């Protein structure tokens, strides 16, 4: 018997977020997976066709409603819960979108949620990090129970395109609450690569000393490397960088090919956000900084001298 899996797509109305393709890969790890992707949108055509192109997806359900112009947890949860009956597993990404909406769906379905799935051991058994990644717990759901889960995107590669699943537009009778209204979202800036999916990330910490220095020192190097820019919590708290750049336990969990930690001491909460990076480079003037314990290449010295020199060498 196949395991019917429903994945809640994340998107911005036009583009399917890469986190959804990673959920597909996670779902493929479940034996006999039959994967359906649900796209809640005002006009779902563009996003649904991107979801349909992911290898491994058997079917796309487009849920079109004016209330889906901005994806609000209360509205999305009502629609997904109405749809979820026949599915064994309901998965979404462990991004701020998925973290917001998935527990709401779980409660509506009276199901437990497994957060931050990092490995699939069977249809009912999964591994996830706890205590900021200082322990990994293996959890098992009751046989026959619905499994709700968020997928730790850094643990899975994106499913490739090349598929052509059918797109259906089912009629869903869900009462969509009107008690929550979207007001605004800060304009996502930059032509720079996206932090969550970038192959290279240049990340700065408190040692940068000011917002001006953060910008001046890191952005030029990031441009040379075609890298995304990240930041430690300390740098964000100090106002050197905006919150969406924060990497770590309570920020973004990333897995780039190359991670440059510049002036970052390496608190455990930060390390949990980068431990799946292929190669970590640390530049710090404190040779005892914990970041050097995990760095593949460590360079002890003054970042304000080293970074300009790196830029010259890369020119």
């Amino acid at each position: 018997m196949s395991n019917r899996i429903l994945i809640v797509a994340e998107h911005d109305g036009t583009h399917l977020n890469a986190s959804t393709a990673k959920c597909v890969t996670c779902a493929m790890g479940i034996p006999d997976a039959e994967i359906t992707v649900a796209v809640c949108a005002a006009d779902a055509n563009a996003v649904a066709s991107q979801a349909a192109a992911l290898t491994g997806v058997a079917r796309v359900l487009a849920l079109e409603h004016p209330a889906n112009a901005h994806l609000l947890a209360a509205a999305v949860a009502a629609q997904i819960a109405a749809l979820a009956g026949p599915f064994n597993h309901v998965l979404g990404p462990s991004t701020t979108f998925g973290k917001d909406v998935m527990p709401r769906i779980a409660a509506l379905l009276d199901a437990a949620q497994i957060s931050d799935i990092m490995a699939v051991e069977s249809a009912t058994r999964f591994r996830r990090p706890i205590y900021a990644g200082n322990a990994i717990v293996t959890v098992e759901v009751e046989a026959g129970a619905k499994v709700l889960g968020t997928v730790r995107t850094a643990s899975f590669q994106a499913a490739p395109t090349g598929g052509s699943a059918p797109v259906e537009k089912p009629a869903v009778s869900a009462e969509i609450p009107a008690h929550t209204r979207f007001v605004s979202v800060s304009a996502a800036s930059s032509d720079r690569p996206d932090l969550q999916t970038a192959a290279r990330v240049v990340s700065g910490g408190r040692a940068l000393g000011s917002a001006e220095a953060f910008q001046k020192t890191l952005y030029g190097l990031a441009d040379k490397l075609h890298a995304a820019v990240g930041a430690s919590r300390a740098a964000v708290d100090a106002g050197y960088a905006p919150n969406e750049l924060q990497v770590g336990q309570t920020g973004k969990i990333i897995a780039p090919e190359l991670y440059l930690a510049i002036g970052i001491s390496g608190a455990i909460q930060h390390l949990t956000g980068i431990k799946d990076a292929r190669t970590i480079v640390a530049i710090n003037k404190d040779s005892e900084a914990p970041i050097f314990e995990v760095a593949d290449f460590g360079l002890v010295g003054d970042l304000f001298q080293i970074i300009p020199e790196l830029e010259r060498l890369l020119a």
Partner: protein
Amino acid sequence: MASGMKRILVGIKRVVDYNVRIRVKPDASGVITDGVKMSVNPFDEIALEEALRIKERGAAEEVIVATIGPADCQQQLRTCLAMGADRALHVQADGIVEPLVAARALLKLTEREQPFLVILGKQAIDDDNSQTGQMLAALWQRPQATFASKVQLDGATPEGQPRLARVTREVDAGLETLEVELPAVITTDLRLNEPRYVKLPDIMKAKKKPLETLTLAALGVEQRQRLKLVRFDPPAQRQKGIKVKDAAELVAALKSKGLL
């Protein structure tokens, strides 16, 4: 319990302190918590701080702090009373309390206390689930505004309660602002505020504040454990790498690995 009073309910959790280095037990049955310092979950302290500030601005009259857990949790409730909460509710429960059970218990408390706002941390730093607030909002059939970095209350009902909350949320794209009708559930992110320090006289005063003990059974909530915790393992360790002496050596090393 009578409504009418403008109340905020704050959910807190007793967790292993932020600064403790966690270790897995050699027999893989859990993590070592014996003799380890326990604290209020840091995100929940932020939740309480926000509630206290709302009260201090006059938009609320009472701040109630609640937790679900073993008898030891009363220490953390006392800490919250010392911070400024008016009274505490302790729902006694030994063993594992899953987020859905906590949410059901909190739902019962909202029915009892009729708060116009429930504030919780966005996640507990022990199990890192980030579920309870959203689950409560679903069961309560009320709005949720998670990962809040700014909360503004607006409007007034005929009873003089705030009617709306405008909440700025830290999301992957940046900052998102939602408007939610009250009552609602808000979960707090790090930068919402900086919690106050507890002063000694406040600790003394807190001993006289009311702390009521309840049970899950009395609330009609079944302490069901749906997830079996099979085993605990330490994370895979990264190999410690090498030190390079300067920028040129670093670039050469990265090139030799095919990274540049």
